């Protein structure tokens, strides 16, 4: 999945990536907006910045995200 700035996303699953931390379990099911897709290249492995509705902004691995709207 290619993520773009401004897309609405849902954290729909636990990530398999090493950067997934325990506290992120609480974000499951939450919706947010991609604020920084990655820094300089379209890299499916890059951690991307997501502003979660009422939970703050976090860098998350991409495999836990899915787009829910434009």
């Amino acid at each position, binding site marked *: 999945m*290619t993520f*773009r700035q401004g897309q609405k996303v849902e954290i729909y699953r636990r990530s398999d990536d090493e950067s997934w931390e325990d*506290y992120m379990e*609480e974000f499951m099911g939450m919706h947010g907006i991609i*604020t920084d897709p990655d*820094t300089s*290249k379209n890299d499916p492995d890059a*951690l991307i910045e997501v502003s979660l*509705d009422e939970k703050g902004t976090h860098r998350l691995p991409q495999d836990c995200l899915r787009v829910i709207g434009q």
Partner: protein
Amino acid sequence: MSPHTCSVKSLHEELREKLNTGDPAHPWCRQKASEIFDLVHDVSQGQAGGDHLDSIIELAGHLTDQGPDAKCRELGQYVTGFVNRNHEEFLSHIHTHTCPTGHCPMLTPAPCQMACPAGIDVPSYVTLVGQGKYAEAISVIRRDNPFPWVCGLICTHPCEFMCVRGRMDSPIAIMDLKGFAAEKSMSARQYVNPEPLPDNGRKVCVVGAGPGGLTAAYYLALRGYRVTVIEALPVPGGMMMVGIPRYRLPREVIDREVSMIESLGVDLRLNTRFGTDATLDSLRSEGHEAFLLAIGAHGSYKLMIPGEEEFKGVLPAVPFLRRVSLGDHRMPGRRVAVVGGGNVAMDAARTSLRLGCEEVHILYRRSHDQMPAHHEEVVEAEEEGVQFSYLTIPKEIQGENGKVTGIVCVRAELSEPDESGRRRPVPVAGSEHVIPVDAVIPAIGQEVQSQGMEGFEQVDWTRRSTIRVNTVTMQTHQEGVFAVGDAVTGPATVVEAISGGKKAASAIHRYFEGIAQPTLPSVPVRRRRLAHFEAPAALKTDLQRPQMSLLGNERRRVTFQQVRLGLDDAQAHNESKRCLRCDICIRCGRCVEICRDKMGIDALCLGYLDFDNPGPTDLRITAERCIACGACATNCPTGAMQMTDQNGYRVLSLCGTVLNRLQLEYCEICGAVLGPARYHDYIMKRVRDISPEMSNRRVCLDCARSRSGGRHAEITPPRE
């Protein structure tokens, strides 16, 4: 209790339930329980003082010790245990006026504040800017971010993506307001540091003077620590100074904000590379007990194509921008190709133009709408004359006599989405072509350079070659060693580095004090509770996001002068008034539901309240339909929706936006306020059949009842 549940709200609801169901039954006990309930209510409303928690525990102790029956004593024990178990959360409610779960509506931070990685109290400083209190605005920002001016110019502003106003028309220009306030207060010499705590004698060494390292230095210095910052470069600021071109971020801005940090006593040692000029042992021998690694990501990814290492004229973007920032203004070539589509690529291309390059091409292998660079950066680059070649993949760098002469590219087309949904650029057979250039600047990504860090033997590295930390505390695997910034996240944003620096400063303090470290990320704290501006709905709707003046294109192409010239006073003040004040209105939608479903009026067209499915918003339509019944205001949990009687009018407002204003009517008999005619008509329509006395007359309920009662008195009850 689930970790999502607010303990304060939970106790509040439990006590309410008990009191409503007559438990406890003993009057003395009920009185004490009511007093506890009132105190907990104050905590949940952000109205508690320093003594509230002690008073709750004391009252609960009375119940336990003096309770006349078992139920009373059990309640006292329960409250005492509950408060002790959740002591920190109660204190947090009292001291920060913030409810991290969002269950205490009065204490819920606005989405913009939640979106800010540094957690800045955006609504408060936006309001202060509107009031002309620029220095106060800066002091609010610096509670969470010591670089308001820098961030006012170059922040990626995720706050604006979450701005609720953006669901109506366009988001508030939050970043621009921050830059405006910083410039104003700095210019007026009102940009000052808070008073630091007395020197505590403990020493901390920060490796790297970028935004993350300097932020940690600032907050540690305020706590009384002696901070040494060592920096390999001859200038402080890290990527802010050597990665962001001067036309976006003037050097003076960085210098002024760094000097504010230095003036707190931070020892900044430039031209000092860790591992060579200073070692772990030498720094420890100076008394440093904790270390913060903030070394950034100053390495560049290679294109990995033939010719890259062979010819002079291939200069990766990061060293290129660094070289220019440090004063080397020689142009890299007459014709330049920048490879990449991110912000660094835009910076390299626009910098090349300013150095005098005649042709600057950006080669990007995907399409325009897939570029990670910010839209404004792309537009400004286009305006300045950068030529964009999309769906273009570099294949080889050509050269003669050891110098670059061209770059061989192939055109690409995007494939059908693969199983992950990603469309990949696929080379088109036979589309090979050469773009003649003298210089190639790869800008396809950055990496952390770990050389010199070998001294930190237990620090662990990830497969992305970044430092592994607990991102709640920024602690590495080595005791007393913390890390922040791009070295942890990979190349990211200035505000994320600042966020990490603030977290690390707190964690380092806890490390020294032996205080337990948090297990969840900290939640932004509301710094102020400010009154809103009053504005008519029409004005609130019509105000537009300001268009910032830009430097003329001719000058942009030849100088490094700042391109974005800032807002003027009127623009800033009006923009502040556009804010919907989501720190007051929590967008629960109760007002809309009550008006539509209970009253059947449907006067509130507030589609912006819904995050996932925002609908149309029309603030002006309320005046056409609203009867000023007040049901919305009565049911508003935060007081955002208010109805007041002012000078003969009933006024309905949402966070100061006047939605409706109707003339009041008065009882013909006693002169009491009846409400507006529309409201009276609404009531009359419903009671006409059961109370004909009120038909067509402006009479209050009391007078109608009394007249009706008088008539009924003449009726003789039937005899049994």
